[in-house]
C-alpha cells in the first residue's frame, strides 16, 4: 500500500521525506545517521564517516531530488548549484556526481566505494544498503 501511495505521489510530482530512501555502498560503515550528519556529507563538509571516505551522489533534478534538498539540506536546487560552484571555483571542493535517474544513482552507488545517494522509496535497491536517517 505504501509503495502504491508513493507511486501515486511520485507521479503527481509530490514527494515527501517518507518517500525518499538514502542508499549507500556496502563499504560505508554505518547503517544509520542523523539528519545533521547526512547534511554535512551532502554539503561536502564531512568527507568521512567512521574513518571511511564517503562521496555524495545527487540526482540532476526531479521530484525526489527537490524533496531531498528541501527536507535534508534546506536548499533549493538553484541554491545548491551556487553553493557547490562557489566551492569548486575557489578551489575548496570537487563537483559531486549528479546523475539522471534513480537507476543511475543505484548503479553508481552499488559500484563505488563510499558512495551515498538517495532514490525514491519505491525503487528496489540491489547491491546497496539502506541508511536509516534519524
Amino acid at each position, binding site marked *: 500500500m505504501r509503495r502504491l501511495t508513493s507511486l501515486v505521489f511520485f507521479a503527481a510530482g509530490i514527494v515527501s521525506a517518507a518517500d525518499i530512501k538514502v542508499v549507500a555502498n556496502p563499504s560505508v560503515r554505518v547503517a544509520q545517521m542523523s539528519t545533521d550528519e547526512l547534511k554535512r556529507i551532502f554539503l561536502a563538509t564531512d568527507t568521512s564517516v567512521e574513518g571511511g571516505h564517503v562521496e555524495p551522489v545527487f540526482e540532476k533534478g526531479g521530484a525526489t531530488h527537490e524533496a531531498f534538498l528541501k527536507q535534508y539540506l534546506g536548499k533549493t536546487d538553484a541554491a545548491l548549484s551556487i553553493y557547490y560552484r562557489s566551492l569548486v571555483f*575557489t*578551489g575548496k571542493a570537487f563537483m559531486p556526481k549528479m546523475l539522471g535517474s534513480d537507476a543511475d544513482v543505484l548503479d553508481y552507488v552499488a559500484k563505488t566505494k563510499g558512495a551515498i545517494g538517495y532514490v525514491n522509496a519505491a525503487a528496489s535497491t540491489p547491491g546497496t544498503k539502506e541508511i536509516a536517517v534519524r
Partner: protein
Amino acid sequence: MDKRKNAIALVALACAVPAALHAQFLIEGRPVQIHGFASQGFAYSSDNNYLTMNTSAGSFKFTDGGVNISSPVTDKLRVGAQIYIRSIGTLGQWHPELDWAVADYKFKDWFGVRAGKVKTTLGLYNDTQDLEFLHTWAILPQSLYPLDLRAVTISHLGGDIYGEIPVNKRLGSLSYTAYAGRQFDDKYGGFRDVSLQQGRSRAGGTGWIAGVDLRWNSPVPGLTVGGSWLHESAVSGGMVLARGTPYTFTKEDQTAVFYGDYMRGNLHLTGEYSRNPRTFRFAGVPGLQLLRQKGLAWSTSVAYRVSKHLELGTYHSRFIADANKDWSALSNHIYDQTVTARVDIDRHWNFKAEGHFIDGYGSINSAHGFYLAQNPHGYQPKTNMLVLRAGFNF
C-alpha cells in the same frame, strides 16, 4: 586590439574545449574536472565615468573569464589551479593571472590544510567576488568588494587551516579558516590610478597578511553569522613624476568584517559591515609623510527567486573613505542603491540587468571606481548607471 582578440579567442577556446570534453575525465583512475566561466558586460551611466570605463558613452569594456582544473589525488588530498583574465576599463588589461593554485589535505573533517596560492576568506564574498554567476548582482556592493582592488584582496601566497566543528544539534556548527601569507601589488588595478592622480607612479609592492574567519552555522535553518579579521603589513614605492625622484611607503592595515546571511526557500537576505583603519608612512614625497584613514563600508541586500528562471533583488551599499572626516561630503562617501533582475536561462547561462543610483564619488585616495583619469573635468554629485551582464559557466 590583436592582444584583445587573442585573449578573447583564448577564453573562448578554454571554455569550448573542456565543454566538448564533457569537463570530467580520468587520469590514472582518478577523476579530473575542468570548469570555466566568462562574462561580458555593458555599462551606461548618466554623468560620471565609473569603474575606469567610459560609461557615460556606454562601454562594453567589461569582460572577464577563467578556467580551472582540479583532481582528488587521494581521498584526503586534492590539487587544482585556476587562471583568471579580465579587461574592465583600464583594470586587468587582459593580463592572465594565476587566480589560485592549491594543494588541500583534509586530515579530519574538523581540520584541513591548504597551501599555495589560496583564495582569501574575508567576509561573505571576498573569495567569490569575481564569480558573477554565483551572485544575484551584476556588480557586487562596491563599498565592500571594489572591482579596482580585486587582485590585491582575492588571494594570498601561503597557507590556510580550516574546518567545521559541529557543536550540537541545538547550537549548530562553527566553521573556521585561519591563514597567513604574502600579497602582491596589482600593476593593473585601482592603486595604480590612485597614485597617478596624485602625481606618482607605482612600482610593484608586496605585503604580509594574516587573518581569521569564524562563522556560526546557526540551528535556525539558513542563518549564518560570522566575523573576519585581517592584518596587512606592506611595502611599496615608485617615482614622484614631477621630480623624477623615487619614493617609498609602508602600509599597516587592519580589516574587521561582521556579516549575516539568511537563505530560506526563495528568499535571500544579507548584511555586512566592514571597518578598515590604515596607516601609510611615506618617504620621498614632498609634503606627505603620514596618512591615516579609517574606511567604513556596509551593505544590506534582499533577493527573491520568483521562478526557476527569474530572481529579483536590491541592495544598498555605503562607503565612507575616512570616518574621521565629514561623512556627508560627496568627496568622502559613495552610496549606491541598486535594483537587479537576474535571468537564469539554464544551469550554464545567465543574464542580468541592474540599475545603480549612486550618490558621491569618494576621495582621491579611495580606489573605489571614480578616477580623474576618466573624469578630467571633475565629478557630478550623482551617477545613475545601467549595467547589463551576460555570464556563462560550466
